Every structure is written in structure tokens, then in C-alpha cells.
């Protein structure tokens, strides 16, 4: 994840809380790529749309936020995680709804997207060997780029639990990588 100095982050935060467009833009740039990656890894049907929704919520509520860069990331990904859970519940009641992610539809993919899609299929096959909780820990740690403490805050678990889940997950992935999915 892109990392800013504390001073640079505080300047962006102050600007955004004043309503300055440059502040919003800076905070969006800080999280947008990792946010989309997290939503893709979590199986959101419209990762780009959902990422926009999460960032709009972030911009609307930025005036009430108080904290450092670490707390900011944890806050944004908590919003994103809750939105994904809500979407999954909504989709579960509408099984016929089509996914919006263009990379998931073969006929609409470009060549880079084909390569990206194939690689994603391999990774998903590897992640399928994990439990849901282990998978979520690895996605937050690797794809979202969160620290152990940030991951613990997003998932509502203790730091030691995150470390234990991560340890089990990495052991399993290393075995899967050697032996194949």
C-alpha cells in the first residue's frame, strides 16, 4: 500500500476536513488500488463500483474521523468489509444477478485482463485450501496491505489470533504451492 509520512497524511486529512478537493483526492489515491484489490479478492460483483461507494462514504464522514494513517486505513477497510458482507447477503437472496466485474466475463476481457484473470484463477485455487477466516486474514495482510494490528481491528479479533491464523494460512499455502491446489 502506498505510504505517506505522518506530516503529509495530516496535511491531506486537514485539507479534506476543510472540504478541499485536493485533500479528498490525496486520500482517495492513497487507498483506491488496494481497496479495489481487496474487493476483488473478496468476490465483490462490482469491485470498481463498490470501491467508489466506499470512498464516497469515506469522504462524507471524513469530518468525524480523527486519527493517524494506520487508523485511517483500518477505518476505510472496515467500511469496505461491511459493504462486501452486505452485498453477499443481498446477492444470496438474488442468485440470478450477473457479476459486473468485466474481468470475470471471458467475452469482454482484453489481453492483459486475460492474463490477469488466469493468474487470479490460480491464486483463487490456492486460497480455496484455506478456511474463510484464514483467507480473509491473508487478503487483508497481502492484498490490502494492512498490518497485523490493522487487520485485527478490521476483523474484530485480537492480535495474537491474527498471528495464529496467518501462521496456519502461510503453512497451508506453502504446502499447496509445492504440492499444487
Amino acid at each position: 500500500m502506498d505510504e505517506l509520512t505522518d506530516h503529509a497524511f495530516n496535511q491531506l486529512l486537514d485539507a479534506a476536513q476543510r472540504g478541499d478537493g485536493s485533500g479528498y483526492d490525496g486520500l482517495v489515491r492513497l487507498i483506491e488500488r488496494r481497496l479495489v484489490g481487496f474487493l476483488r479478492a473478496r468476490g465483490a460483483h462490482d469491485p470498481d463500483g463498490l470501491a467508489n461507494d466506499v470512498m464516497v462514504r469515506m469522504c462524507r464522514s471524513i469530518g468525524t474521523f480523527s486519527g493517524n494513517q494506520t487508523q485511517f486505513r483500518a477505518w476505510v477497510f472496515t467500511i469496505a468489509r461491511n459493504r462486501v458482507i452486505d452485498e453477499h447477503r443481498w446477492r444470496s437472496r438474488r442468485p440470478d444477478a450477473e457479476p459486473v466485474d468485466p474481468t470475470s466475463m471471458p467475452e469482454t476481457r482484453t489481453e492483459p485482463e486475460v492474463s490477469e484473470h488466469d493468474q487470479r484463477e490460480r491464486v483463487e485455487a490456492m486460497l480455496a485450501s484455506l478456511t474463510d477466516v484464514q483467507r480473509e486474514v491473508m487478503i487483508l495482510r497481502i492484498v490490502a496491505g494492512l498490518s497485523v494490528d490493522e487487520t485485527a481491528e478490521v476483523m474484530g479479533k485480537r492480535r495474537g489470533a491474527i498471528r495464529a491464523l496467518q501462521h496456519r494460512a502461510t503453512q497451508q499455502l506453502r504446502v499447496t504451492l509445492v504440492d499444487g491446489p
Partner: protein
Amino acid sequence: MDRDGVSTEDMPTFGRSPDPLDAVLSGDPPEDLRDLATIVDDMTTAYVPSSPVARHRDLLQFTNAPAVPVAAPAPTARRRRAAAVVAGFAATLIGKIVIGSAVAAATLGGLHAADKIDVPLLPEVSRDDPAPSIEEPDGQPIPDPASDQGRDHQPTTVPDGSGPPDHAPAEPPTGSPPEGTNPTADSRPDATVPPVDTRPDGPPPFAPTPSSSVPSDPGPPQSPPTAEPPAAEPPTDPASHGESPPAPTDPASRSDNWDMSPEIGPRSGRS
């Protein structure tokens, strides 16, 4: 399993030991973690886009907002620091003593200015139009308990030289001579000292007849206008006497500002 879904047997194993994933994510993994580095690269490449996300209209309303100039540098931070410094000072013993003394002094000063109490060390507050004193129907001045703390409310004999030497009537009396007493009673040998009207202009609201003017040696308090006033000599020394208006019927018009001896009547007059 505990509430985290992790066996408690596993949790103490890690504690604060180095996280191998952090070593890989830092960009320089050790040799034994190359397989883990491969997994991290695969996951990042598969999911994280290489280009910025397309922004929808709702988000563009925020990111395209005009720049807002900074009016003051971080006022909330400054306020927080100032508040923290003040709170820290107030929490100390010295801070508590200083703040408590200031509050007490302000309270005493306010009460003194409002004539609720008389603080000897503070100067008297001047009043432009001091209200007249009042008297009982029998000529005895009506005591003012709000401004006459610790004093005998009944008129008493003024000891020699015990009059109010620190002040004198500001204005010569106008209109009818007073029925009151001479506020500067240094020369008076005895007798009661009824309150004196030191108002600069106009007759007292219940101006007595000229025959009721206060003599240079006032004598006992005079009766109110409703009663037949006793005869009195006209004043010879404006500074040695005052006017004592008849007793008003409105208790709210009692004077708090008459030059009086400390022993009787309301507070000393205001110049």
C-alpha cells in the same frame, strides 16, 4: 476454541516474535521465505490493479471540489495544546491555589462593588446619584442590613473623632435643608448621625420644608414629611452637614451610599 476462532494453545506461541510475512512485504525476504514471497507476488498481481480506479460522479464531486484556503494553521490542534497546558497547570497544587485565589478575589471585588459587603482595603465605588437615606416614622434612620454589616442598625452616639474621616459629602445640599445628620461628624460632640443626602442636584424626592433643614449640629433624626417637621437652623457649612430626606415609602429606594459614621446607618457615601 476461543472467541477469535483460534486455539488458545496457538496464540502464546507468537507473542512479539518477528512476523515472516512482514519480512516478505518489506521487499527484501530472506532465502527461506522465497516461497512465501512468490505467494505474495501472485496475490498482489492477481488482485491489485496497476492503474488508478475510474471515479464515478459522486466521488468526483469531492475530488474535484475547489481548493479551500487555510484560514488558520490547525486551530483545533492549537486549542488542544493550549487546553492541555491549562489543564496541566490547573491540576498542579500551585495552579489550584492561583485559580482559587483569583476566583475568591473576583468574588469579593464583585460583592464589594455591589455593596453587598465592605472590604476595607478596597476603594469605595463612586456613585453619581446616591439614593437618599430613609428614616423610620419616628425619625430613626431605617437600617440597611445589606450594606451595614456588623454595625448597629440603630442610630448610636458617635464617639469623638470616630466619624467617617476617610470621606466627606461630595456635593453641597440643594433644596430644602435635610433632616439627616452631618456626615462628617468630627465636630459633633454627640448625638445620632442620621444619613445625609449627598446628591448633587435636585431636592430629595420627599423634600422637607425649609423649616426642617438640618442644623449644623443635627441633633436627633427628623420625622418624615407626613409628620410635622421640627424647626431647624439653616445649614451654615455645606461640608458639615447633609440633607436627610424624609423616609420614602419604597424600601427599594433606600440608600446604600450615604456618608455615615461606621457605627450606624447604611454604607459610606460615594463621592
